[in-house]
């Protein structure tokens, strides 16, 4: 009973964070029931995650851009353009894949540097600066694909990024062994970090949640990881896209929650004047955030080009808006200073689940857009309401 009480208070304090997970759970459950379990099938979940990878990495970068009170509209066509450059390097220039990828990522950083220069150095509103960049990259994409039209990429290794899976090593029944091993390792690492975090807090004599609650929380999250692993291992195992997205999320999550640079980013978003007077260089932070956005746009371009196994003339169209929507659904505040990487990833998965589920149900594309729009509005309304409640408390 005591445990229940503690759970209740934990939920009410973190309603905004948990609300998202609950919403995702409800969406998944609803679609599962409506599709007789087809939605949660190994194959569908695997496809769903792979198809949202290139938006998810953009949403991660966009989260930080919005946190520092800016916006980047150029990421879609920047991704399209850089993806096309990757295709050209691989096919026409014959550059090997292990050189192409770092080159494209560096080009992405240079793109970010350009946006950062316009915003931080010239003081142009980011909306306008990135709109200009968006037009430029759209033109650049058309320019490089003008002669050839769609560029087909035949490099197996490159195409594996968007379509391939990590090797299985062996199969246990239907399940991929390596994926299972990775899942177990992730659970072990998770438990290890949680326990050492708790130990550290106890060392400082800080208040921690009760050991019963702690065990419950760990079991619950481990079970979810195990379930997802089991589902994915039942199809082809973890795809390379999943691995890449996970690595990006882990790095950015760590960066934003545990490092000085992360704290500075949120300080700038929360109050730029106060940040400046606290000895933080607002300009430097703006550059860093836009460069990270540029690099992630490049990664998104690589993921997308690889998934389609080709670069098209319209690649990247409206990616920026999907990324922005995912960030807002994930609880990023338009006023700046608030927003989590994990939230935006969940936001991206929520939006992707809606598309995937509605596709399975055969809902027309016109309704799909309306429903996704409604969900975006609802998420932000929920956000505003819970924030207001917290401010009153």
């Amino acid at each position, binding site marked *: 009973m005591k445990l229940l009480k503690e759970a209740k208070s934990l939920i009410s304090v973190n309603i905004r964070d948990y609300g998202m997970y609950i919403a995702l759970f409800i969406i998944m459950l609803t679609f599962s029931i409506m599709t007789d379990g087809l939605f949660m099938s190994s194959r569908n979940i695997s496809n769903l995650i792979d198809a949202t990878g290139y938006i998810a990495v953009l949403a991660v970068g966009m989260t930080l851009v919005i946190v520092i009170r800016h916006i980047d509209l150029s990421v879609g066509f920047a991704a399209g353009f850089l993806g096309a450059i990757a295709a050209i390097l691989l096919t026409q220039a014959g550059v090997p894949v292990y050189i192409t990828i770092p080159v494209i990522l560096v080009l992405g950083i240079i793109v970010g540097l350009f946006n950062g220069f316009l915003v931080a150095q010239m003081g142009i509103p980011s909306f306008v600066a990135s709109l200009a960049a968006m037009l430029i990259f759209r033109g650049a994409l058309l320019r490089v694909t003008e002669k050839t039209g769609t560029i087909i990429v035949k490099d197996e290794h490159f195409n594996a990024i968007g379509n391939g899976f990590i090797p299985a090593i062996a199969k246990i029944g239907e399940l991929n062994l390596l994926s299972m091993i990775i899942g177990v390792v992730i659970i072990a690492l998770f438990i290890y970090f949680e326990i050492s975090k708790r130990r550290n807090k106890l060392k400082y004599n800080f208040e921690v949640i009760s050991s019963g609650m702690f065990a419950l929380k760990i079991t619950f999250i481990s079970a979810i990881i195990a379930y997802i692993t089991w589902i994915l291992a039942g199809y082809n195992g973890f795809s390379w896209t999943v691995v890449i997205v996970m690595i990006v999320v882990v790095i950015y999550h760590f960066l934003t929650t*545990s490092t000085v640079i992360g704290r500075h980013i949120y*300080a700038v978003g*929360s*109050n730029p004047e106060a940040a*400046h*007077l*606290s000895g933080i260089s607002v300009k430097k932070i703006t550059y860093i955030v836009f460069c990270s956005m540029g690099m992630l746009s490049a990664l998104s371009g690589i993921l997308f080009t690889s998934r389609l196994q080709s670069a098209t003339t319209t690649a990247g169209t409206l990616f920026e808006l999907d990324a922005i929507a995912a960030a807002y659904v994930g609880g990023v505040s338009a006023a700046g200073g608030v927003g989590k990487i994990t939230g935006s990833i969940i936001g991206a998965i929520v939006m992707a689940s809606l598309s995937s589920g509605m596709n399975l149900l055969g809902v027309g594309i016109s309704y799909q857009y309306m429903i996704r729009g409604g969900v975006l509005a609802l998420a932000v309304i929920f956000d505003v309401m819970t924030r207001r409640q917290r*401010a009153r408390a």
Partner: protein
Amino acid sequence: MMNPYILEMNNISKEFTGVKALSNVNFKVNKGEIHCLIGENGAGKSTLMKVLSGVYPHGTYSGDIVYEGQVQSFSKISDSVKTGIAIIYQELALFPDLTVYENIFAGNEVKKGSVVDWNQTIIKAQEMLNKVKLNVNPEVLIKDLGVGKQQLVEIAKALSKDVKLLILDEPTAALNEDDSENLLQLLRELKNQGITCIMISHKLKEVIAIADQVTVLRDGQTICTLDASKNEISEAVIIKNMVGREIDDIYPKRNKKEFGNTVLEIKNWTAFDPKLGRDVVKDVSLHVKKGEIVGIAGLMGSGRTELAQSIFGNPKSYKLRGELFSGGVKKVFKNPKEAINDGIAYVTEDRKGDGLFLIQDIKQNISVANLHAISSQGVINNNEEVKISNEYKQSINIKAPSVEQLVGNLSGGNQQKVSLGKWLFVNPKLLILDEPTRGIDVGAKYEIYTLMNRLISEGMSIIMISSELTEVLGMSDRIYVMAEGQIKGELPIDEADQEKIMKLATQ
């Protein structure tokens, strides 16, 4: 007999959540006179004018406003405007990107049917400009005019609405001498045309030159009304009535007073603000010794905050001239970070605006300026952060359930303590406090004073900027008085009193 008063404000009281801003103020203005309203910052002048003009609607204050023989109950600004009351604030309410004529008739457009008649507007605007003797083309943009001319446009705007009672809030604060003299001359002419004028001003010379009557407010109360025709108005009398507050024992005593070497010194320090197009700090020289509290007194707008910021890494990018010595070594701080690294900290005047991160919690606010102290290789030790913020929470008595509380939810006094905690964590050698006790209650004030004394005894130095004379006198070891961007005088604490400071500050 005809009622000589155009305006009588009787027993006006106004409270802001627990703080009494006005209590039983009486203020009577004769028809056709120039009546000056005087008092320290926070004495209640602006509040009284806001009550009069309907910014604070009827019902939010107690007492009567009798205007032109009738009791008025304005519920919004436009109500008072309709009766012929116009108020011109210190911060001009003009649209910089619109033309002079558009500004004069903004909100009061000349119409033909339901469309604006621009030709008539221009013709009428020209008439108004003639009245205020402003010789500019009405089609010029406001932003292309100087402040003095902008002020005249504001008056022209008021005249276009058939103003009977014109209220000016520190009209000459931002003007040079010629412009000020022009403005005063214009007010005399308007008076001859029968327009009554209330002027709030800190410049006593002007007041003495122009006022028919002077009313002095102090701590939200009417102290006296002086009449020029009875020869009652003089600088000494006004100052005596403005100050006069007792220094009570809310200032904790410091026993040991020993000063060490000079910590910071600036020489011939001038700061030019490119946005305003003028020097905001002019030829200032001052120094601070180790273990000393140096007070900087002066009225708002005298350049104190600009001086502090120009020392603290110049975040507003003024053009600086002069020399700065820190610990005897000449230094140039390119940004606040360099100043912080050199051991200088600055607690801002506007803690909500540019001091605190309101949507972040106490611990994040305390650690933000010195994150490297609790991190290794750029990775923050979150537990260490909680521990240290808890230490500051205790030592400076921040009242909150935990350090995870959002700063935006704290009271003013506790927010100020968080600001202090943030800078104490940096462990500076010089702490610049800009209005350290503005808007906080007496209990928290006392705690902050006690903290200041403790810091001094630990070898820190403090520059305290304050508009409260008693605070400056109660806490400082030495006082500089600023006005118009200059240091008008330096007073050792033994020789300083309220009259002397006020005299220097109102030069």
